[in-house]
């Protein structure tokens, strides 16, 4: 299978490692070769966490600039920061709910305008799916389920070679019992939302 390359960017604490492990598990279930790599040294201290997931026949576990087929952003300014990973054919899926870094609070930076961010991204890549994933996570009953909402949107976009059912099964095996219901709901809400956001 021709490799499909997915980059996920998030802020520490947003749960992107769980999202990647669910995707990895789903690929294993689907019988698709998968490799992932992540940098999580300072994740718990509020830094940026980046994961690369490569599906299909490739040996590399990291993704070079301009080579992502999909960029999944958990936070709009981080999606923008990672745009160098994209090319003209990349599909970008992003949460629109901002988490301004602390540098903004202490006056060492200005948070970009969200409308402007969307316009910029849309003009450079093949498709942008952008929506407020945090609102849907709340609706699902768990603000921390932004990761599952975005997974739903990713699967709905149809580029990564795992089916929604494989992901549903993986969510069951990989998430804690107490969050299972809200995670499942969040996934379905994200899946539906991305269908509409096209």
């Amino acid at each position, binding site marked *: 299978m021709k490799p499909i390359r997915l980059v996920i960017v998030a802020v520490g604490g947003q749960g992107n490692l769980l999202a990647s492990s669910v995707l990895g598990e789903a690929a294993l279930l689907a019988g698709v070769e998968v490799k992932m790599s992540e940098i999580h040294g300072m994740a718990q201290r509020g830094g940026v966490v980046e994961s690369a997931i490569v599906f299909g026949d490739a040996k590399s576990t990291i*993704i070079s600039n301009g080579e992502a087929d999909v960029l999944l952003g958990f936070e709009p*300014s981080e999606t923008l920061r990672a745009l160098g990973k994209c090319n003209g054919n990349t599909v970008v899926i992003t949460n629109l709910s901002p988490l301004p870094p602390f540098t903004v609070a202490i006056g060492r930076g200005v948070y970009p305008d969200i409308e402007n961010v969307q316009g910029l991204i849309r003009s450079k890549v093949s498709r942008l799916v952008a929506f407020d994933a945090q609102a849907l996570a709340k609706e699902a009953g768990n603000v921390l389920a932004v990761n599952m909402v975005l997974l739903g949107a990713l699967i709905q976009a149809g580029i990564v070679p795992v089916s929604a059912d494989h992901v549903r099964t993986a969510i069951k095996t990989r998430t804690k019992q107490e969050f299972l219901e809200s995670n499942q709901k969040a996934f379905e809400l994200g899946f539906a939302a991305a269908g509409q956001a096209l």
Partner: protein
Amino acid sequence: MHKLLSKDTGSQVLLLGNEAIARGAIEAGVRIASTYPGTPSSEISNNLFQVSQESDLYFQFSTNEKVALEVAAAAANSGVRSLAIMKHVGVNVAADALMTLAYVGVKGGLVIISADDPYMFSSQNEQDNRYYGKLSGLPILEPSSVAEAKEMIIEAFNISEALKEPVIFRTTTRINHSTGIVELKDITPPVLKGDFVKDPFNYVTVPAVSRKLHVKLLENIKKAESLSDNSPYNRISGSGSFGIVTNGVSFGYVSDALNDLDIKDKIKVFRVGFSHPMPREKILSFLKDLEKVLIVEEGEPYMEETIKAFAQEAGLTLSIRGKAENLFSRLYEFDPGTVRKVIADYFDIPYSPPETVDLSDIPEIPARPPNLCAGCSHRATFYEVKKAAEGTDTVCPTDIGCYTLGFLPPLSMGDFLICMGSSVGSGCGFSAVTDKKVISFIGDSTFFHAGIPGLINAVFNNHNLTLVILDNGTTAMTGHQPNPGVDMAALQFGGFGKVSIEQMVKACGVQHVEIIEPYKVKKSISAIKEALDFEGVSVVISREACALFAKGFKKKPSRAFHVSGKCKNHKDCINELACPAFFIDGEEVKIDPVQCTGCAVCAQVCPENAILPVKEA
């Protein structure tokens, strides 16, 4: 049951590189493992610690890497399989033991994991530990993938026993922190009981003994060279008149590049997995019919230098290149795109790089540096030291841990750092030659690891410095491992002792010791002032649990604080503490109740007393 103890032989599971390495060691029948935690190696240890709670594995967090290696060396010389785990710079700490252990050798297999960190994702340098193979004479194995790492570590134990020498198993971050599909194999039950047979004329390295042992080591290197020549880990694939020699993760990038460029029939690839000693004969026969060769290796030109020397001895004159201005860099890590481009350039292969998006009109995005957690006790201590030292000309050597982040503004506490423990040793030097007041910062775990000799030095040589020990009861940075100061019984682990930092400090001869609770701001500032005023060596022990670690034990979350109507917008809280629980909403300062741990430090800093606990609903 821990997932790494699964008996489900043949099943395919998704494992993190570090989990795969731990599983490989378990399958190999490892009896004892010792470590000092360090990224990117830490998850190997965390997993083995858990596994040791429910299996025959003996595991320990040692005070530092040197001790860890000594523990493993003794166990291996008592005949059991032993594993010492450390990050690349940890091998520097262990190097004294390593160099002479190579003379002495082992009986049971001993594998030393060196987790290198190209690009320095979480390290102070990116040294290439393959040179430790040359320096010590020990064999080095290097996997290229997560799945291979698990198989190769088993072989590392076998090679160690065949040669009766320790084997260095070298990984890089992209092996440790990559995830891949791994097939589980049978677990060999470990040999449980070791026995040490006295043989002082081979074990006690006085000069007369070592002169003999060095001869033995050189013989073993010869044997290792022949193992390397015949190793399945040093393998050739493809065909053609061009050649590439590569190792580690670069092998994956090379393989993908040859596919992408469609030149698999033009280029022969030599993947080196047994990299010390380098496989001389196999390399020479590889070079023989080639026109030109490219060496693809991250870090230093380790293979390049060796291969050039082999070629020179054999009178071969083909072009062998690797590190050069227009080829590969010695800096940072590689990536598939760079490797593809250099291969295409060097071998003159037509190639159009993927078009990246134009980033010229992207607005500046605010930086997101890592920050001490909300409620981190270090933030309070740094603030208090800063206040106590106001008006004094200071130099503040710092050390390695979460608290290194205190060097960032607005706290800006941290002026010099080179390695574990350097806060104290370098503090002695600053106090000797400058007129500044020296205030050194060190964490509890780092103090035990390498701070104590520096402190004794300060007392003996009568330096004028204040050492602030940030005692948060854990090794927080690497994922909350225990250290000798931790009350293990309180964490429900039996069978551990405990070393008191204050008794230790006093025993080192320190005359002035203050113990503070950093969440009590005023009291702490005045205690720190006293310590700073003391002529000579003084110590401040700032004791408060790591906020992130403590969160895991709290039954009920503490009460958060909020900014009340009394706020006059001085923003002292934000500008001086920079706790990430604060945010600005329009013009108003607010506190995120989810992040706030209720430490109340900001409430004591606010000049209007405007920060108050949230009323219970």
